[in-house]
């Protein structure tokens, strides 16, 4: 069979113009599909930034919470109840809210404030300037060093600001693995200072962060939290819930899905069309092969090989192009949100193979129908 494949390969690749057009079509389709889904995946990661950065294993929340930014305060007794659940190593409150700060130059800026449990500082970020213990100092806040920090006037340790008529001072700069989606700077402080400085509702616990004694007890913790009328989600479970929210309840997912389908269709029509033209222009040659004695399944094999080969090469080029574009974008915009995930790559591969399948199906049908007699008579 290897000779036949080589023949198919030469017939395809030696037709440089058409082969190039075919590759451009597939590359373009793959690029669009991978780019779209990578951006979406980047957005989803950013939407879960707090969950990822705090790193707690289990999150207890009100059942109606849909994403991390819109928390629903929990009554204090829930914290005690959770603490007494069998299998809970420790459970701490997390404050999450937003506040308006007035910078030294008089400019107002919205910030997200995360208040960490005073005793444990569970989930505190890694500091790149200052010491985490300084968070206990008077009026102390830690600013997150991400792209949004310029909105706070690039503070240094010692920089002062006003937060709801209280004095605030930056004592450290923190590094986080994922920055937020909404372009708002983040400040960390202690739980008690957060509720003292920021006007709050009666209840002030946004989430309860739980450290289980082992992974095995998580289901039973979840069970008992459910009996309290609340939900306990693992880190992955919470991220999934946030992702589902953006996918299904914001229109974002639908739009990305539509764009992905459109890029698939564009790619399919360009490469399907080009491949079809390729087959049509070579129809006479396939007819001659048939007359000489090529069997139906050999022709099918040849065409399928040509389509699949083009698809795989186009896939490689498309993914490569995507990686280059995302890398360049990240060089210019450090927080450019796009992740090429294995799911995305696998998805695009499946799509491109479907394109190859459909293209070769059309070609094969055409070729199997030709009568070598018509070649004879020409």
């Amino acid at each position, binding site marked *: *069979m*290897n*000779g*036949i494949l*080589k*023949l198919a390969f*030469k*017939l395809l690749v*030696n*037709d440089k113009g058409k082969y190039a057009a075919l590759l451009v079509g597939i590359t373009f389709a793959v690029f669009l599909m991978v780019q779209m889904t990578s951006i979406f995946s980047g957005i989803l990661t950013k939407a879960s930034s707090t969950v990822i950065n705090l790193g707690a294993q289990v999150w207890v929340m009100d059942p109606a919470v849909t994403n991390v930014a819109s928390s629903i305060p929990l009554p204090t007794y829930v914290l005690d109840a959770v603490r007494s659940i069998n299998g809970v190593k420790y459970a701490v409150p997390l404050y999450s809210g937003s506040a308006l700060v007035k910078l030294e130059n008089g400019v107002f800026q919205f910030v997200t404030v995360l208040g960490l449990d005073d005793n444990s500082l569970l989930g505190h970020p890694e500091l790149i300037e200052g010491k985490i213990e300084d968070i206990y100092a008077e009026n102390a806040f830690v600013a997150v060093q991400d792209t949004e920090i310029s909105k706070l006037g690039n503070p240094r340790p010692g920089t002062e600001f006003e937060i709801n008529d209280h004095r605030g001072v930056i004592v450290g700069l923190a590094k986080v693995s994922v920055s937020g989606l909404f372009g708002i700077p983040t400040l960390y402080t202690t739980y008690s200072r957060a509720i003292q400085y920021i006007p709050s509702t009666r209840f002030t616990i946004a989430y309860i962060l739980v450290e289980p004694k082992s992974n095995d007890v998580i289901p039973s913790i979840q069970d008992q939290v459910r009996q309290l009328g609340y939900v306990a989600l693992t880190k992955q479970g919470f991220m999934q819930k946030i992702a589902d929210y953006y996918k299904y309840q914001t229109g974002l997912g639908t739009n990305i899905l539509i764009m992905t389908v459109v890029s698939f269709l564009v790619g399919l029509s360009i490469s399907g069309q080009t491949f079809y033209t390729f087959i049509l222009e070579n129809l*006479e*040659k396939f*007819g*001659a*092969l*048939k*007359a*000489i*004695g*090529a*069997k*139906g399944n*050999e022709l099918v094999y040849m065409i399928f090989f040509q389509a699949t080969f083009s698809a795989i090469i186009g896939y490689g080029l498309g993914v490569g192009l995507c990686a280059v574009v995302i890398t360049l974008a990240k060089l210019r915009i450090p927080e450019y949100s796009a992740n090429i995930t294995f799911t995305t790559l696998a998805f695009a591969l499946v799509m491109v193979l479907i394109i190859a399948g459909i293209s070769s199906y059309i070609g094969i049908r055409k070729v199997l129908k030709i*009568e*070598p*007699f018509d*070649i*004879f*008579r*020409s």
Partner: protein
Amino acid sequence: MRSEAAISANELTKWFGEGTLKTFAVREVSFQAYFGEILFIVGPSGSGKTTLLSMISGVLRPNVGSVAIEGVDIWQLAPDQLADFRLNKVGFVFQDYHLFPRLTTIENVAIPLILRKKNWEESIEEAARYLEIVGLKNKAELPPMKLSGGEQQRVALARALVSQPDLMIFDEPTASLDGDTGRRIMNFIKNNVLSDQRCILIVTHDNRIFEYADRIMKMEDGRIIGFDNGRSH
């Protein structure tokens, strides 16, 4: 010379279209052709020559009648067996050659060998021998479009020869060639292609080459109207 008929056509009939559009291309044609002979099929345009050739070579299924090649009724064969028959027993030289412009000359010649599941290198090696036989060894790596009409004809001939077929079929081999080149091709066929093991069918309009025929079968309106002896006899 083998005494068994190479080709035995029996009441071959082919029509196209149905109802009022039904036209007969070939009507109840029966004849035999033998190993070691060159049989010409001549007749006016539209008289059914190509249609007849196609039915004999396993390319076009007759509506009525049968074709036996070396005693085997080819139209009783399964599709894949029929393809094998064409690959192994028949060598075609199409009227306009149908060479592959994207392949080199030698690759064109190697195609039937590749289809016979030989590997690429083996096929190319063997093709080179046949390219040498037709005197085009030095053009092996050129695309066929760079060759003259007569040279392309020889490439097509080499491609038909590589399978060492029992049956060689030419449709208008000299129609697009000048008289000299046409005669050179015919000389080559007569001296190098014809053998006791081989039967050659040639469809032609070209009366300049009738002298190369052993027999000439005349057709009109889908029927055989008679046989002539070629001038060489």
